């Protein structure tokens, strides 16, 4: 438990260009959250909504204009803008972080 908790979620620098992030998730797909690159109030809000490392998130739809999209996070549907969700990195299918 404590080892898991002490995982530092911060990542130095920006994500790799081809980073697998939440914005790339199509409706119906789900994935595990890797790291949050979001800062400030939204970071706090997302964490409070339960979007911590390892959480399974499913994209359940897009708004008619294509952005924002709706995500199923711990039983609740939350709408996020692509600009924000692009900063939420995902672990790849093997369940491991793409970068250390």
């Amino acid at each position, binding site marked *: 438990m404590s080892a898991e908790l002490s995982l530092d*979620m*911060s990542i130095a620098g920006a994500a790799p260009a081809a980073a697998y992030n939440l914005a790339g998730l199509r409706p119906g797909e789900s994935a595990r959250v890797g790291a949050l690159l979001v800062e400030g109030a939204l970071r706090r809000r997302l964490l409070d909504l339960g979007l911590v490392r390892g959480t399974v998130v499913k994209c359940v739809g897009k708004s008619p204009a294509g952005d924002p999209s709706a995500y199923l996070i711990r039983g609740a549907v939350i*709408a996020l803008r692509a600009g924000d969700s692009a900063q939420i990195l995902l672990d790849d299918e093997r369940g491991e972080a793409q970068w250390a």
Partner: protein
Amino acid sequence: MGLTKDSVGGGAREGDTLLKRRARDKLVALAGNPNVGKSTVFNALTGLNQHTGNWPGKTVASASGYAQTPKHSLLLADVPGAYSLLAHSAEEEVARNFICFGGADAVIVVCDATRLERNLNLVLQTLEVTRRVVVCVNLLDEAAKKHIEVDIPQLSQLLGVPVVGVTAREPQTLTPLLDALDEVLDAAYQPGETAQAAYPPALEEVARRLSYVLPGILNLDEGAPQIDAYWLALRLLENDAGLIADLARALGQDIAANAGLQLALKWSRECLQAAGLSGRALSDAIVNALVRRAEQIAAKTVHCRGEAVERDVRLDKLFCGRFSAYPFMLLGLAGVFWLTIIGANYPSEMLSTLFGRGQEVLSDLLFGHVPIWLHDMLVLGVYRTVAWVVSVMLPPMAIFFPLFTLLEDVGYLPRVAYNLDKPFRLCKACGKQALTMCMGFGCNAAGVIGCRIIDSPRERLLAILTNSLVPCNGRFPTLISLLTLFCVGAAGGAAAGFSAALLLTGLIILSVAATFLVTRLLSDTVLAGEPSSFALELPSYRRPQILSVLVRSVLDRTLFVLGRAVLAAAPAGLLIWLLANIPVAGGSLLTHLAAFLDPFAAVFGLDGVILLAFILGLPANEIVVPIMLMCYLAEGTLVDAASLADIKALLLANGWTFTTACCTLIFMLFHWPCATTLLTIHKETASLKWTALAAAIPTALGLALCFIVAALSRLIA
């Protein structure tokens, strides 16, 4: 007990909505995530009919009411919905300050059984502040429909406090909640062991040490608010500036100047730094621990068979679908207006006839007993104006508000924000502005207060300044009757109602377009900035409580708005009668004023009377037309509102053309907000400058559009 504006409201000035606390009352806070049916629980417990809506962040002001358990009498405070005690919206600060420093004897945390895991975060945080907590798991009926089962006894065991499962819309299910409240309010109450969040060991160690010395350093034993030292230590270590400022206010001491505390904090932070826990890593670790614990508890207590949001996703394909969303929104809008226009016709006529009889009775009563001028002043001035306002306003409101509330209740309104977020973002604003805009259709003052749901101050101000650009319920009846008179023809019936609804929808689209345009203009000039982030919860679609929607919207909204309009109309009716009946140099004051304004008004396609009516109608938009008619009728009293054809004849006789009608419609749509809205804007922004701007923007827009229309029509003619 510190229920002052400062301690309860923080920056948002909330405390004035609390009722007086009687000596025997226990103060109980009602907390919970947004949209968990908190207000329904509140209504069921207090019987005070407060409005609830099915979209996150509806309760913008703390409401309060008295309730009774078998053993205690309570003052129940409904605090705004909050996801966390750590977070940062204006509403959440109000909630946090009340729960942490409000001096409540107990806290009820209402949870949504269908989204329990997310809700447990707030429960765990509240349990760190106080152990006198009752967890109320609401919406068990919705959960059952989604095949979700919650193990209530197990949850109570894990949390160490009473947990009750309820379905708040069936008030008889709330009895266990009252018993649980008696249990935690009892002086001898002993909470069980709580499975608190497990923070990193280094943090727990440092926080515990700090908590030993805090009571001494801060003189906590003598301070009025009871604050848990361990919780306080965590918050001080976390160094949340907003919370520390509120804490300093609650304790009545200058924390930054407390040398002992600063020393202890410095030492503690060094210890944490050595363990790699500083700044963001520290706050991440805290939230992470809470979320993990919530996850573990939910895993043991919530059993779900099947996909819980399947139905919502299916419905969203229709209401938020790529091709269906916008047509559906427009159709819905037009449908609401059509129902309002058609449905309001007959009751309006009936009311008008009824008030006509009432006037005869009143005349008979007064006649011969009071001087004739007093009779005229009261009957022809005050009574007729009030009667007009009621008969024109009540029926559309009594139809529009319930329809609107119904849309709220089923959970459609957050989807409007979701659908419209992109256009708003392109104007560098927030999609939640769509919600406050929708509230503005009901009442602009309510819309302005509703802007508190928008987190970013810049975006909140944008929403406040543009709210009056959409017509409120006080302006709808005028828009509808002018449309019916000049644009639809006298055919009457459902077909005319349909074209009126269509035209009205066109006007609404114009006002929404103006909202976007002005928002963008403001974003590029006085309120420059980039759109902030956006995280909006889309609640489950729920079966609406039709009967309670009817009762609630008629009682809370319709009668409230009507009452306010009558309060404004009565003195205005008196003033206008006086202006119209005091003879000055061969005319009345009213005609002189109108003549004075005439040349100016003519430039904008209006006439002096119309402009004067708008100016005198500042207290309430509903009385603009009555004033106009009163002015046109030289006799200085209001005409009978029953016959639209008579009104049209009167307007035409006074030089109205199609252009005049168009310009009046436009000016009705865009002019200064009513007095109530202006006062509300001033209260919300605490600035004369922004209030003035909020009045100047729609006025300038309206005058500009009228000028263009008038110029064009002169060009064509």
